[in-house]
């Protein structure tokens, strides 16, 4: 594809609230942007849309903040029509690298190559070159193990929501929604609206603690009202909410039939004798979110040691020149924060790509919102934490690493008998975290059960990559001085 009319180019990875807000802000300044996303349609997790073939005439029934989505979608369409933005759906990015050779970008830094695999089978390689990159890859859900959590019918809370929003399907008739965190509320109300009987919403934290911190929350009355809105909806749909409760076991042989829930005492321990069984065929469970930091890490961006966020400055720049980051990869915070950060990142990148020093006054409103939301979320983070003694509930025969079927008992033996003192050694001794998902699902659980600190796991690639693709990518990128034209090179138009 021909490219050179001299206008600078930005590759945005991720078409969720952060990536879209960033793309619109940068394109609004005349910068050409390519938005690369693994999903079939833009929207990310929050604004995941039903598949086009399903012909949904009322998708907003599954959503909140629909007007904001309309604005994003219309802005995207406008810029696409004007030729400033291209959207590449179904592109799974496995690596972003800074090119060792070639001319410098208009920022004076090395240009970037974004490596992606096209299509649902993720085998067809594509390379995109850009002057700057903006990573907005969002996050995925954290689930801590408990006996029975691998039974079919047990799904992540966000997964239940994604299947509902994207495929208009649910996995059963009676659900329990459990774990901790604000995501449980939209999941419970969404399932109830879709005709599922939500037998209970089981939250291990005590949201009353939020009220005690009301001072810190006063700045975001809108967020408190949002929470209250869900509470009213739950009441209206007769969903029983059990706070300071936790699921201690999921029952069934080949699929989920019931869960046992129990009350937690003030110290976060299960209160003996408080157990009760609830029949259900679906358990939607989550204990918070983790960011997708792989691409940023491989690019060399600074990531906090516990792996919870990519470091950014006030303009949302990472410490790699030419690379910005926004949304949940810079700290979990929900769609509103992702929008504010995306807007700031796009403004900053847009100005700098055109050789202008950005004027922060131009994004004062977004910066104010970002500051307030981060403060608000700082408070939420202290309230919505998993039960302090969750590890006590994980019996030795509970599978912890779902891929390699490593049990909690094996992890404990690695620590107590084989002397493993860190997550890496546990992994080498047990194979926990060495399977298909590369430890994304079991990382926090293995650390918790082993009693070790969580560590950033270095994954060379964000997606499994076919060997043939790797070999060829190495030919173009790995050997400076021997550049090779790649016939799949797909420059920003």
């Amino acid at each position: 594809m021909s490219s050179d009319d001299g206008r600078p180019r930005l590759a945005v990875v991720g078409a969720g609230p952060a990536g879209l807000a960033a793309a619109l802000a940068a394109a609004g300044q005349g910068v050409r942007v390519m938005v690369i996303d693994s999903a079939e349609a833009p929207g990310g997790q929050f604004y995941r849309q039903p598949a086009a073939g399903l012909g949904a005439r009322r998708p907003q029934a599954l959503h909140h903040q629909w007007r904001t989505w309309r604005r994003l979608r219309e802005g995207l369409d406008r810029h696409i029509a004007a030729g400033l933005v291209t959207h590449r759906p179904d592109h799974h990015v496995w690596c972003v690298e800074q090119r060792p050779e070639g001319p410098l970008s208009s920022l004076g830094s090395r240009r970037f190559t974004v490596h992606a695999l096209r299509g649902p089978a993720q085998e067809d390689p594509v390379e995109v070159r850009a002057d700057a990159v903006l990573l907005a890859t969002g996050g995925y859900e954290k689930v801590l193990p408990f006996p029975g959590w691998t039974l079919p019918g047990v799904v992540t809370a966000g997964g239940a929501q994604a299947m509902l929003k994207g495929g208009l399907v649910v996995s059963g008739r009676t659900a329990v929604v459990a774990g901790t965190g604000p995501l449980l509320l939209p999941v419970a109300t969404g399932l109830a609206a879709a005709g599922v009987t939500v037998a209970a919403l089981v939250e291990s934290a005590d949201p009353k603690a939020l009220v005690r911190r009301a001072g810190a929350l006063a700045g975001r009355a809108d967020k408190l009202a949002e929470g209250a809105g869900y509470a009213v909806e739950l009441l209206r749909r007769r969903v029983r909410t059990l706070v300071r409760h936790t699921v201690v076991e999921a029952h069934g042989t080949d699929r989920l039939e019931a869960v046992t829930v129990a009350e937690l005492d003030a110290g976060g321990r299960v209160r003996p004798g408080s157990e009760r069984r609830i029949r259900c065929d679906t358990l939607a469970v989550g204990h918070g979110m983790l960011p997708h930091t792989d691409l940023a890490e491989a690019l060399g961006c600074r990531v906090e040691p516990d792996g919870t966020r990519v470091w950014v400055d006030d303009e949302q720049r990472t410490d790699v020149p030419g690379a910005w980051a926004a949304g949940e990869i810079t700290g979990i915070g929900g769609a509103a924060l992702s929008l504010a950060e995306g807007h700031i990142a796009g403004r900053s990148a847009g100005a700098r790509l055109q050789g202008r020093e950005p004027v922060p006054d131009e994004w004062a409103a977004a910066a104010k919102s970002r500051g307030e939301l981060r403060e608000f979320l700082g408070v939420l983070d202290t309230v919505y934490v998993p039960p302090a003694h969750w590890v006590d509930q994980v019996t030795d025969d509970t599978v912890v690493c779902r891929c390699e079927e490593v049990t909690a008992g094996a992890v404990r033996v690695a620590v107590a008998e084989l002397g493993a003192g860190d997550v890496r050694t546990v992994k080498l001794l047990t194979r926990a975290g060495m399977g298909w998902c590369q430890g994304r699902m079991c990382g926090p659980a293995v650390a918790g059960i082993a009693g070790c600190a969580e560590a950033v796991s270095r994954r060379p690639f964000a997606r499994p990559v076919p060997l043939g693709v790797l070999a060829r990518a190495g030919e173009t990128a790995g050997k400076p001085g021997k550049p090779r034209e790649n016939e799949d090179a797909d420059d920003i138009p």
Partner: protein
Amino acid sequence: MNPLELADAAPGPAFAVTLDGRELAALPGQTVGAALWAAGVTSWRTTRGESRPRGIFCGIGVCFDCLVTVNDRPNQRACLVPLRPGDAIRTQEGTGHEL
């Protein structure tokens, strides 16, 4: 109210796919996982070690629990792969390679 009614969906005509040879109806746009859930199926793989059943877990392509064989290609993520008319879905045992 079911999810299709909630979103006031008017999908294109349903088409046939097979699960281990048995015919199932799928709607245009549905992934393998969505069509199987709609048909009441929640597991379609057994694990390598303990032969335990698995299906959708994360729903967004991260966990690889939902692996399935589609048109003889093993290890496809059911939560990501959209269905086309006539697709042959096969439940998968172990690595999916030892058929």
